[in-house]
């Protein structure tokens, strides 16, 4: 007995051609990748400004080795208070070398290397907390003349700007998704219209709604997956270039920011792209496929409702 190729009359390769939908989904995915990359970059900058170098509070203690109001030296007393304060993540006293490196431009201008320098403590606070103002009276008590400097006003403003950029990126992604859903719906409806006689026939022969919707959804889901893959691949070079340009701004330390890049190392390229961005690029094709599948299922089932 001859075994014949399976045919159910829907001829979806004619109803849903394989060029138009993948191309549009690829374009949507490309735009979504750019918008998401913008959001992720804004998030990274926000992290740096609120948790990284921009969120450092410096405590200057003049005459650090003088006796404190209670017992021990002034610097030891200040360090003790700061280190044990709630909301302080780390407190690091800069070494003489670090301090002189920091002040090198001014020291070179004065030409006086023996200038008495205050001790400086670099304080990293827990994100979202500002423990220093309540500590000031206690620090003043043990080390009069202590100076606390924090650029929280600027970092807060920059963080707010970053949050706005993230919201814009999210909005852009939602718009792109909405357009992609509309495109999938339009393509599906066109396909249903093209094959309406075949659909009506197999419906009258007892085909379940789930069968017809499943056949269409599989086709659209696959085409959307291919389109999503194309969009992700197309976006990758641009995102790599943008990540490379943005690397100095998102580095957590100055050393990272100015470090030269090894152009021939894939590892170096992978390092400059935020991991969240890589995951997002990997997730885009299946997300496009699933979105296409769900949209088509709903569209076909709604269309089939017109049949008894």
């Amino acid at each position, binding site marked *: *007995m*001859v*075994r*014949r190729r*399976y*045919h*159910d*009359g829907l*001829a979806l390769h*004619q109803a849903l051609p394989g060029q138009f939908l993948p191309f549009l989904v690829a374009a949507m995915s490309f735009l979504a990748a750019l918008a998401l990359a913008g959001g992720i970059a804004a998030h990274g900058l926000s992290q740096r400004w609120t948790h990284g170098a921009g969120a450092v509070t410096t405590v200057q203690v003049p005459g650090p080795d003088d006796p404190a109001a209670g017992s021990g030296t002034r610097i030891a007393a200040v360090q003790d208070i700061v280190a044990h304060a709630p909301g302080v993540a780390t407190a690091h006293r800069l070494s003489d070398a670090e301090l002189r490196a920091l002040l090198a431009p001014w020291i070179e201008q004065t030409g006086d290397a023996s200038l008495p320098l205050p001790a400086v403590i670099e304080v990293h606070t827990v994100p979202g907390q500002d423990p220093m103002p309540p500590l000031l009276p206690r620090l003043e008590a043990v080390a009069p003349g202590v100076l606390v400097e924090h650029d929280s006003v600027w970092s807060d403003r920059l963080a707010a700007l970053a949050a706005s950029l993230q919201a814009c990126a999210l909005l852009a992604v939602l718009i792109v998704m909405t357009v992609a859903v509309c495109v999938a719906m339009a393509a599906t409806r066109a396909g249903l219209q093209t094959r309406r*006689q*075949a659909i009506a*026939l*197999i*419906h*009258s*022969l*007892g*085909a*379940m*709604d789930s*069968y017809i919707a499943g056949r269409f959804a599989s086709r659209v889901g696959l085409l959307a997956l291919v389109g999503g893959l194309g969009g992700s691949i197309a976006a990758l070079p641009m995102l790599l270039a943008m990540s490379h340009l943005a690397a100095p701004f998102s580095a957590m330390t100055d050393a990272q920011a100015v470090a030269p890049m090894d152009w021939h190392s894939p590892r170096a390229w992978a390092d400059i792209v935020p991991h969240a961005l890589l995951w997002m690029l990997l997730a885009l094709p299946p997300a496009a496929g699933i979105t296409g599948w769900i949209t088509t299922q709903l569209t076909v089932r709604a269309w089939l409702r017109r049949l*008894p």
Partner: protein
Amino acid sequence: MFRLHDVSYAYGGNRAGVAALSHISLDVAQGEFRWLLGPSGAGKSSLLSILSLEVQASAGMVEILGVPVMQARRSNLARLRRRIGTVWQDFRLLPDLSVFDNVALPLRLQHRAEDEIAHEVHAIMKWVGLENRLDARPLQLSGGEQQRVAIARAVIYRPALLLADEPTNALDERQAGRLMAMFHRLAELGTTIVVATHNDAIVEKYPAPAIELAHGHLVRDYR
């Protein structure tokens, strides 16, 4: 097998539509063969459309193979359609499928094994005398051949209810005779059969109980 009680049907909705059937009540038992008679426009095709679940009655009660159609869920209606075979007047063959694939379609929708499908299709196509045209497309066939393919598709899954709208129109006398013999054989095996026709000659040649319609009304239901 099927019961209609006070069934009405109007094209384009109940209020503004054109009445095609008015207050039809029928009760047809399992294994019965019935002619459905009446002139053009009498409502024969509308009645067959209601029985084949192609349209819903505008009013009344329809029960087919024990299923109350008006209250049934969509999935139950789909299952019910698999037990009803229909030969449409316009054949409704899919032009981009081969004859084999057209006839195999109902079995494929029931997820039968391909070997079984091939066996069944070859058997039925041999019976209708088209075993050599399996790879042809419907548009490559004559009207009579297309009608035989449509008949083969309707009976291949041995439906419990078989509906046929003018099934002998495009057949010669010999083919029509073979078809009627098959219908009677199917009825003996328990299939309920309703055949719509306005061909008086064939009704006289193969006498059987008849349902007669005129202007959408049931004129006679005699056995």
